[in-house]
């Protein structure tokens, strides 16, 4: 047996995906199954005067039409939000609060009949003036939530850092920049939309929920709390999941209505979203409006950072943030830089838009924070007339400062930012690019180089700080080694493209000296998997990865006793070396884990429990802090505003790399999404609250045609507190890349005096900026 960690092993899950043999939610068809389709409000803000079900009910095949009133009668109209500070409607009740809000559900014998009957549910609305802009919401002239006290659209104020010291430092700084930097509303838009098959078996009293869920245990607990059904009577199965990016963490009205229908009728009920439903009602991302101020000395040493944010949370405060972190991990906004003083505050408001807010590979608002600081540093470099690389180098947290206590309350685990940036600059040939740019500028050509030296924080998280629904954000692993040395590995996470079936086997294989190909990984079934908090926010490897390694080490401890028995030596004389148990000082005497596994069932030591299995619930001592240097090189066509991304280099440091090929794949995918956010994607609303991006002709997904060719490399700075030194990487490319693209375009437009354009940098926006500047 040889090394497993660090090997580019092919993904064990791919054969079934490549051959079309995956089993996704919509592949599940149960006998007698009914279908749910939802009626949506065309108005963003309206009173519901009446709902007439009669015409829909008269359609052959329609079994039921459920409204908010029906749910209210059953005390199921309101759902608690994950952090517990708000509640959200299942179906619009009294008022609709955003366009496309779910108003009624039609249950029918086929999907087609259900959708046809939706057209016949007659809802009479009294339109009300909508609030589409969070700054308008702030005025409190129209109050959106009648159900809450006090009567205001303001949800919360959150702040961190030393307000007074930061204000003083800014006031006395020789150089200051201030810019409103918007991270616009976008949407994760996974290829597979959300769905559920709810199957209430009235004979057994058991409710089985097949869901596109990334947190099946949390969903089980949430369903139990809302419905009162004991948790042992609820079985959540998350089949293969076709992408999530944060979209499949919340509980959606369709899940609840399908479940209620199944519980009442006693047959399975399926609901699968349409693309428009996914884009218009489920968890969006961003909508942070950040006023960023940085102070510095004339020499370019930063003195203070202040960020004041207005957050548009939509109609309900349903962001799946941990309870004590209403603005997520926005405190990471000081990034890779050693700020003597910093202060961040967020004020969140209700608007007539759908709720959500923390989706799209962002690890609880880290994306917004990283975008703010990396754009801010570029604006400062411009003001100082300094190379943005030099400004960053001067202000990096130094290698010897780790563990580093940030002014906003984080303890960064490890990093060598200067070394990673140096490697990136060498690979891209930074000096030569600057020379080329100077030549081109003489000819009036617009070439830009953009850099992002981001630090993010992932792996929520330590139970003392992080919980969802009060449940600590630990994660778990269970390992059972069979007599012949193969085994089954289960975790509380749920992959949706991350490759856990391979990487979890690699972690366990490495720790136990077993072949990862013979370790079956299973997740997503609450009857068999240990309780876990799920897969999002780049937490699987930092948390469940730790649980897996420590569970494997527990197995190894027991195996050592059995090895001593087989080797006929004292346990203290046994050592784990070269992936097998040897005897200290006797090189040729050893037993493999396979031999030990067989003995565990056939010949255990007299005083030892037979078998070889264990579990581990891992509560990490700290978050992890992956980082990287990304560089974009762009050419901008001054006549059309078209941006050509000529090169893009990502040098990531995510600590120990389990499977380099999978990490590279994660980075490629995240960069494509970051590219889309920078140049193409926005969920826009007109002044009447109409969502203008309800399908893939209006909300763009980059294809191979638009996506640049990525160059990737890495440095490795292990996390000192993680059992295998891994930090997580799924979110880094999305967190780190948008600002590299934007900084590159702003660098290209620098000779024209253009300093900032809000994303997405569409051709039209870039062209207008060029035209207005010329």
């Amino acid at each position, binding site marked *: 047996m040889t090394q497993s960690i660090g090997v580019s092993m092919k993904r064990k899950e791919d054969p079934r995906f490549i051959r079309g043999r995956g089993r996704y939610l919509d592949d599940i068809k149960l006998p007698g199954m009914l279908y749910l389709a939802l009626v949506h409000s*065309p108005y963003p803000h309206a009173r519901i005067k009446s709902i007439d079900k009669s015409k829909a009910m008269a359609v052959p095949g329609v079994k039921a039409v459920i409204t908010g009133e029906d749910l209210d009668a059953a005390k199921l109209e309101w759902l608690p939000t994950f952090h517990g500070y708000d509640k959200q409607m299942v179906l619009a009740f009294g008022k609709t609060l955003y366009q496309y809000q779910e108003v009624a559900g039609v249950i029918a014998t086929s999907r087609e009949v259900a959708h046809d009957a939706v057209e016949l549910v007659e809802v009479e609305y009294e339109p009300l003036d909508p609030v589409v802009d969070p700054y308008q919401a702030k005025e409190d002239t129209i109050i959106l939530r009648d159900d809450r006290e006090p009567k205001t659209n303001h949800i919360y104020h959150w702040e961190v850092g030393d307000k007074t010291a930061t204000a003083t430092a800014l006031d006395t700084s020789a150089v200051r920049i201030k810019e409103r930097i918007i991270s616009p509303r976008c949407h994760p838009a996974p290829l597979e939309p959300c769905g559920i098959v709810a199957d209430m078996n009235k004979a057994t009293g058991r409710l089985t929920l097949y869901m596109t869920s990334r947190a099946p245990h949390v969903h089980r607990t949430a369903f139990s709390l809302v419905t009162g059904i004991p948790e042992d009577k609820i079985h959540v199965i998350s089949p293969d999941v076709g992408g999530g990016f944060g979209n499949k963490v919340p509980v959606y009205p369709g899940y609840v209505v399908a479940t209620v229908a199944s519980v009442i009728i006693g047959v399975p009920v399926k609901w699968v979203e349409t693309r428009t439903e996914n884009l218009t009602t489920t968890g969006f991302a961003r909508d942070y409006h950040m006023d960023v101020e940085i102070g510095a000395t004339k020499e370019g040493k930063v003195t203070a950072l202040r960020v004041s944010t207005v957050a548009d949370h939509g109609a309900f405060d349903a962001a799946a943030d941990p309870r004590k972190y209403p603005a997520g991990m926005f405190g990471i906004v000081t990034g890779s830089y050693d700020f003597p003083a910093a202060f961040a505050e967020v004020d969140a408001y209700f608007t007539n838009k759908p709720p959500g807010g923390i989706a799209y590979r962002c690890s609880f608002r880290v994306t917004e924070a990283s975008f703010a600081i990396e754009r801010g540093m570029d604006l400062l470099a411009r003001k100082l007339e300094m190379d943005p690389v030099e400004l960053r180098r001067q202000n990096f947290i130094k290698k010897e400062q780790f563990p580093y206590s940030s002014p906003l309350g984080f303890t960064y685990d490890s990093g060598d930012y200067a070394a990673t940036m140096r490697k990136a600059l060498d690979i891209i040939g930074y000096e030569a690019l600057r020379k080329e740019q100077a030549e081109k500028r003489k000819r009036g050509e617009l070439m830009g180089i953009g850099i992002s030296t981001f630090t993010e924080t992932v792996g929520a998280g330590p139970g003392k700080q992080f919980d969802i629904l009060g449940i600590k954000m630990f994660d778990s692993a269970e390992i059972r080694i069979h007599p012949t040395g193969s085994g089954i590995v289960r975790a509380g996470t749920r992959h949706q493209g991350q490759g856990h079936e391979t990487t979890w086997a690699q972690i366990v294989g490495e720790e136990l000296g077993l072949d990862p190909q013979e370790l079956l990984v299973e997740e997503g079934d609450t009857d068999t998997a240990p309780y876990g908090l799920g897969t999002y926010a780049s937490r699987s490897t930092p948390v469940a990865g730790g649980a897996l390694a420590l569970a494997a080490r527990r197995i190894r401890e027991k195996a050592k006793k059995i090895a001593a028995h087989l080797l006929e030596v004292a346990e203290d004389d046994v050592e784990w070396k070269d992936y097998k148990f040897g005897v200290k000082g006797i090189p040729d005497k050893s037993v493999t884990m396979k031999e030990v596994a067989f003995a565990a069932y056939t010949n255990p030591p007299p005083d030892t429990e037979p078998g070889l299995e264990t579990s581990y619930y891992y509560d990490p001592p700290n978050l992890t802090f992956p980082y990287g240097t990304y560089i974009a090189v762009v050419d901008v066509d001054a006549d059309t505003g078209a941006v050509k991304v000529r090169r893009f280099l990502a040098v990531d440091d995510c600590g120990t790399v389990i499977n380099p090929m999978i990490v590279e794949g994660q980075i490629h995918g995240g960069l494509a999404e970051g590219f889309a956010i920078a140049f193409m994607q926005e969920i826009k609303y*007109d002044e*009447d609250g109409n969502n203008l991006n309800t399908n893939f002709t209006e909300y763009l997904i980059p294809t191979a045609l638009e996506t640049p060719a990525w160059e990737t490399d890495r440095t490795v700075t292990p996390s000192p507190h993680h059992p295998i030194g891994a930090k997580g990487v799924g979110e880094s490319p999305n967190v780190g890349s948008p600002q590299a693209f934007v900084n590159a375009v702003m660098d290209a437009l620098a000779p024209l005096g253009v300093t900032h354009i809000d994303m997405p940098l569409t051709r039209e926006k870039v062209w207008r900026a060029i035209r207005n500047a010329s």
Partner: protein
Amino acid sequence: MNLEWSGQERITASKEKVWSFINDPASIASCLPDVRQTNVLDAHTFDATVGVAVGPVRGSFKFKIALEPRPDGNHMDMKINGGGLGSVIDLLAAADLTAEGDAATILNWKGTASMRGPIATVGGRVLDTQALRVISTTFENVRNRLSGNPPSQ
């Protein structure tokens, strides 16, 4: 999403004849393009089911149309409310008549529409021209019917 249009038709018929025509729900209903079904409710209101094909929004919309003539016999407001496929359209069309001698009438029309739902997504790309086509065709048809020409559509 709010849209506005305006136009003019010269009709070779007396103002009285035009006024009488546009006061009759059945006559107006017959001038709407792509009409699948109409149902006159009373002297001033009717329902119409209209075929719609705007980008991805394809199907039939149901409208309630109310005629609101001014007593002076020169100005007609038409309130058109309805929708379908999850979209809502509120349209206000207004016609002003001016006699041009005894045998001709100038009909100036204005239309404003507010749209909600999937149809608003299609927005400026195609909606503006599609809606303009519907409204202008309606008034063209009024002209053609009264002038004795074949209808535009």
